[in-house]
């Protein structure tokens, strides 16, 4: 085992019935980083996290978290991991204060200042019961419960789900605060790419149960490139391009997005004799959408509808 890694998996696979939810996952998460786990809904992110947390038994394969087999996590290891679930479920009859007291009794490193700080940031009254909290407030409470034990590894399953932009910003700040110490690691899944862009060191991208990318964030952005080609008339048919993700065709324009575009790619595209060809800078969100969108050549959705009665 690599001691610099907090999470390692090898061939981790989970089937639900006939469908693989996660297939042959080989993943490594370095210690002391913020690792974002990205993918579309149903791509296997939550199942992976639940397997890593020992809540779901893998169909096959192996994995370790903080150096321990994920199939038999001990209480000591669990105490070192803060886990925030996707839907922010808590005991509905407890109030905010009781939630804190309940959680504190399990954690020797419980920091009440952090708890009160996060709870206060979300404007939660100690006497408010969980069942009366909004989804965002519940997310804030869950975050406080996860951060206050000062865990070594934070596993956050879509922590921004249901949070307004202000609350999400608070969440991001909390994550930055937490990782000011170099041995802390955050592993989180999210659909909020702006947040990911702000805090993540590395990303892993899941596509239909399979891990397709695992790299530093910058590397991902560098690797996904888009070229805009202008033509005097309708763009010609596109030849086979290595690493092609998408080609969007309009009246006299072709936008080609591919992975690791190089001299050969440029040569192929120039062979189409465009009037003009330029590289379009992509943000993470655009890169991500292109990466996980439908592969191949297509037109805009609405232009497909033109001409229909």
């Amino acid at each position, binding site marked *: 085992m690599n001691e610099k890694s907090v999470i390692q998996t090898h061939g981790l696979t989970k089937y639900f019935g006939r469908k693989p939810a996660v297939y042959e996952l080989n993943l490594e998460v370095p210690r002391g980083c913020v690792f974002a786990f990205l993918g579309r809904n149903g791509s296997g992110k939550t199942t992976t996290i639940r397997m890593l947390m020992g809540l779901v038994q893998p169909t096959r394969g192996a994995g370790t978290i903080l150096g321990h087999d994920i199939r038999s996590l001990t209480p000591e290891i669990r105490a070192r991991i803060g*886990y925030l679930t996707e839907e922010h479920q808590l005991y509905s009859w407890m109030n905010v204060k009781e939630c804190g007291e309940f959680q504190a009794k399990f954690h020797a490193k419980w920091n009440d200042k952090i708890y009160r700080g996060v709870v206060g940031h979300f404007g939660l009254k100690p006497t408010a019961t969980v069942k009366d909290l909004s989804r965002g407030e519940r997310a804030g409470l869950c975050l406080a419960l996860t951060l206050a034990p000062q865990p070594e590894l934070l596993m956050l399953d879509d922590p921004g789900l249901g949070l307004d932009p202000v609350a999400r910003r608070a969440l991001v700040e909390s994550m930055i605060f937490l990782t000011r110490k170099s041995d802390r690691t955050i592993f989180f899944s999210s659909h909020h790419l702006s947040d990911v862009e702000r805090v993540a060191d590395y990303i892993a991208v899941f596509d239909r149960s399979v891990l397709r990318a695992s790299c530093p964030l910058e590397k991902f952005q560098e690797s996904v490139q888009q070229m805009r080609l202008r033509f005097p008339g309708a763009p010609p048919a596109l030849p086979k391009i290595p690493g092609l993700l998408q080609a969007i065709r309009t009246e006299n324009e072709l936008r080609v997005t591919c992975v690791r575009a190089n001299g050969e790619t440029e040569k192929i595209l120039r062979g189409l004799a465009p009037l003009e060809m330029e590289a379009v800078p992509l943000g993470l969100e655009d890169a991500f959408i292109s990466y996980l969108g439908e592969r191949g050549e297509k037109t805009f959705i609405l232009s497909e509808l033109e001409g229909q009665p």
Partner: protein
Amino acid sequence: MKTLIQKDLRENFKVAVIGLLFFSVLLLQAYQSCLAVLTGLLNRTMSVQVNNLQPLLATNLLIETAFLCAIFGAALGWLQTRNEAHRDLWAFLIHRPVTRTEIFLSKVIAGLSLYVLGAGLPMVVLLAVVRMPGHVAAPFEWAMVLPLVSIFLAGIVFYFAGLLTGLRQARWFVSRSFGLGLAIAAMLSLFSLPEFWQMLIVLTVAAAVLATAVWGAYQSGGFYRGQPLAGRLALGLAMTAGCGTALLVGIGLFSTLVLYPLTNRSLDYSAYQMTRAGTICQVTWRDNEIVSAVDLAGHPLLNPHTGEKIEFKELQKQFAYGGTVVSGMNHPRENQNNYQNDTRFFTLLNCTDKVLWYLDRHGKLIGFDGRTRKFIGTLEPPSDGGTVTREPFLRQHNGYFYYNSYNDVSRKLLPTAKTIYLVDFKERSVAPLFTVTNKEVIGGYEGDLAGYRENSRNAILITTRKTIRLVDTAGSVLFTVPYQPADTEYPQVQFTFLQPTNGSINHFALWFYPDSETNRMAGWKMPIHALWLGPDQTVTQSADLPFLNREGSTSWPDQMTATLLPPALHLTVDPKITSVWNLAGLALAFVYALVGWWLARRYHFTTQTRVGWTLFIFLFGLVGLLALLCTEEWPMRETCPQCKKLRVVDRESCEHCASPFLPPEVTGTEIFAPLTKA
């Protein structure tokens, strides 16, 4: 763990309070109904079931409490797990830095505490009321609490079954509740096992199996795989019991609704009957109506007046009556009624002047004032003057009738080993009526004789191992005959008053019936011995009548459905091991075992597991096969690209050709780079 216990106590407290209310109402109502029985008895306004006089042993209370304990226990267990059924809340619980065993224990401690509060507290209050003088006009001893205790404990078995039902992540949803099958079986045995310790063993085993299965489910998040061996074994056993219960219910419904109507089954019952003239005939009844009556040669009986075939109404008028004595007077302590039966502890003998007289299991007559419901004293056989200890009154082997006016002579007669006493309840005195000779011990007696003569009710039939006597209420012997054949093989004596001839009253018949179990072991070859006594007390005639064999009365629907049961259970339906149905059952068990073997091979279980399941299925038949299907998880199978055979996906490599699973297909768009900070 303390925190988890507190959390669970608070979370489910309202369930316990609801249970407390239900139990309180039930027990209060049961107590009131016992008082109503007492009032009815004192006022003689109704014929009453006297076993409802002691609330702790009242049948209705026990049955209703059993139902409520089962429902409350199962609901409490189920709710305790269903509260955390949402996968994220479950994750929140399981991610506590404590072992899953601690989570299990905290759940169980909290759950059982709430169960004690909801079910136990009202029972303790009932017990306190019963113990306080002036509340219950019936004897009390601590052993009477045991039936209620065993029902309370059975509720705990249901509690574990409820927990298991809530936890199990079975793909086939119905099988999630199969843990309840074991609890139901345990509860049913409560009303059939004679001793508390036997019940305690059954409940302990059932609770241990279910608790282990629940513990295993906590280890694996409710799945079978990932459980420790003990958990898997326990779950397998629990599922077997559940499948067995479900199968029995299914068979019962199928037989009742489909097979029996098809067979148009009616129960015929044949027995010998003696006419007043002393003629024996064989009468067959169906649905309480006589359908045939023939003499021992098989000819239909004829009306003596008309010479034609006798009408059955006329025949019934000709039947002679008498009484039956079963030799088996026991010391009261030896009475082997079930521990939840009040006749184990006492028998209500008489109710005179608002005083209830019970014969308790120490051989004492105990009186309770029905109005104040207080103990007033005891009546015992008079001391013979020399001995310090008095002889206890003995009790009838079969107890006493429940419905009675309490004025019959039988209710005034009480035997010790040597003497029949006549008890005067008004005067509260006991006087000897008849004493057997020194070397004899009373085996049985009957004073409630039915006959068409006016003085039949003044006669008492008394048996010892050596003799059979008829005495009158003044103690005079009317006849004595030797007890032959021996009472060990023929413990039941029936006697019949016959039509008086020559003005004599000593004209009757005796029948000796073989012990049923001994006769069964002898292949039902022991005959019924009958003899006729003439006016001078001599045996004028005797006959050995073939026992009307009951064997083979099991209908073919019973036999056929029995083949679906575990092979060992077939024998309880058909004791002949080589019968067609038993062999069919064995053959089916073999087929089920083959199917189990094939399934286990198909899903590539380990050899040990494969052999284990196959043997298990052979022993338990269809139930075992169903248990396999319910318990195991069946992974997806896909075609191996190497050997083209179907392989299970939960192995690291193909079980046929050992080739590993292929990595995901490369699309050329993968982005992998070393994870090192810039």
